[in-house]
């Protein structure tokens, strides 16, 4: 469904991605794991059109979207819950969700999708009228995921949903990620530093090291890999 081929992205002179190739098949959870500064966020930002590729190709359903603008990418069916959540602190939970559905016109379906978000994250329903900034870290993460779902994407990008969240909530959020994948058949590209969790929920995994893919395979196999166990699973 999503294919990155030889993607190169640089910030000035610094090459953050040195030609990575990644495939995300329909209805799967694919994870991209790697240490600090490996280039995970850069990958997602480039897919969403916030950074532009120096060379390489991004294809989504056989369409070249490499040079699309962010709003065209959302319209094409890719939405993102970004690193650090980026909740609109000055908007209510309801308004945050409405912004997620910004490009949509189908009022009835938007309502249904909001009901679905409340069904998986009932806490958001309780906090509907509160300002986004008053939510806890975990609740903000739920809101960021919910907001991305409101675009009714075909591909959901998640950047470190475990970052800075109480361990109990991390468990819950990862269960919900699996639930979204199962119930909606949602294709997900999940970026994580917490390799342990990511490999548990994903079908397929890529290991990113300083801008290069060093290893890939079914998540269960990657989890058993000696090097990965040493480097990322703390064994």
């Amino acid at each position, binding site marked *: 469904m999503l294919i990155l081929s030889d993607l190169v992205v640089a910030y000035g002179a610094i090459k953050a991605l040195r030609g990575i190739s990644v495939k995300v098949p329909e209805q799967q959870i694919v994870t991209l794991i790697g240490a600090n500064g490996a280039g995970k966020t850069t990958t997602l930002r480039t897919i*969403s*059109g*916030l950074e532009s590729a120096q060379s390489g190709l991004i294809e989504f359903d056989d369409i070249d979207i490499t040079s699309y603008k*962010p*709003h065209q990418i*959302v*319209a094409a069916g890719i*939405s*993102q819950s*970004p690193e650090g959540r*980026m*909740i*609109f*602190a*000055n*908007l209510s939970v309801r*308004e945050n969700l*409405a*912004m*997620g559905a*910004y*490009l949509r016109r189908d009022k009835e379906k938007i309502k249904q999708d909001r009901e679905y978000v409340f069904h998986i994250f009932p806490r958001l329903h309780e906090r509907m009228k509160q300002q986004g900034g008053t939510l806890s870290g975990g609740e903000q993460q739920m809101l960021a995921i919910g*907001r991305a779902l409101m*675009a009714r994407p075909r591909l959901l990008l998640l950047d470190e949903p475990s970052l800075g969240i109480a361990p109990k909530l991390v468990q819950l959020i990862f269960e919900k990620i699996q639930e979204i994948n199962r119930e909606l058949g949602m294709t997900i590209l999940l970026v994580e530093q917490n390799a342990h969790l990511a490999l548990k929920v994903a079908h397929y995994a890529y290991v990113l090291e300083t801008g290069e893919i060093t290893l890939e395979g079914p998540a269960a196999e990657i989890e058993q890999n000696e090097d990965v166990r040493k480097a990322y699973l703390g064994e």
Partner: protein
Amino acid sequence: MGEFLQQLMNGLSLGSIYALIALGYTMVYGILRFINFAHGEVFMVGAFVGLWSAPAIADFFGGNLFIAGPVVILLAMVVCSILGVLNERIAYRPLRGKPTIIVLITAIGVSLFYQNFFQSVVGPEPRRFPDLIPQTRVLETDYLIVGSTPLVVIGTAFGLMWLLRFVVLHTKVGTAMRALSFNLQAARLMGINVDRVVAFTFVLGSALAAAAAILFASIYPSVHPLMGLFPGLKAFVAAVLGGIGNLPGAALGGLIIGVTETLVTGYVSATYRDAVAFTILILILLFRPTGLLGSTATEKV
């Protein structure tokens, strides 16, 4: 007492005009983080649109000012909206992402362009703005006379501010404006077309400035190419006073500056008329740089 109420009334009319202009500064700042110094010139153009169109429009409606007045305001608002969007499109958009100082200097350049263009094309001499507000005494007691002008000015200004409030708080594009002003990146990830929302912000700000110009010229009926300078600067101070980027703050700041200026002019000396706003500016910068309603931490996007 009557004298004071009279002054207060005048101060509120002037203040509500400053408030309308200040809202334009603060909205643009909230989204693009720069001061659109050409805003005062959009105001000036609004007054000229009124000056040139009012006779024909009044004629068309058989001298009925109750219809002609609003039509003139609407026309000025439409023309200035287009102008504001063009300014943004031609002068500011190509500089998106460039250091603020460059955009600021460009804005000053745009402002000077309008001033000089109008001076050379229509000439520097002031022209008399036609009467658009029917002159009647609405209330007359032993110690107080309330004319129609301040009431119409205050009513129109507050009506427009209420409308703006509605747009910003209760429509999708208004919510997008608030989202964008908080976090540009996140707004783009929502699929918000930033250029369009920015253009819409210029439409709103310029339209309010145009309405302000018609109201202002109805009180001080002298129209000339430099007339945007002082109202523009004072409204800018009003926006800073209220907390730049904060909409209710801009409205409040405008009212405070208008009332203070009028009271000082009436009770101290007219010499200080233009000094009031700048004294206030220095005081805010010294004691409360974030303004009355501004938040302490402004997030940089």
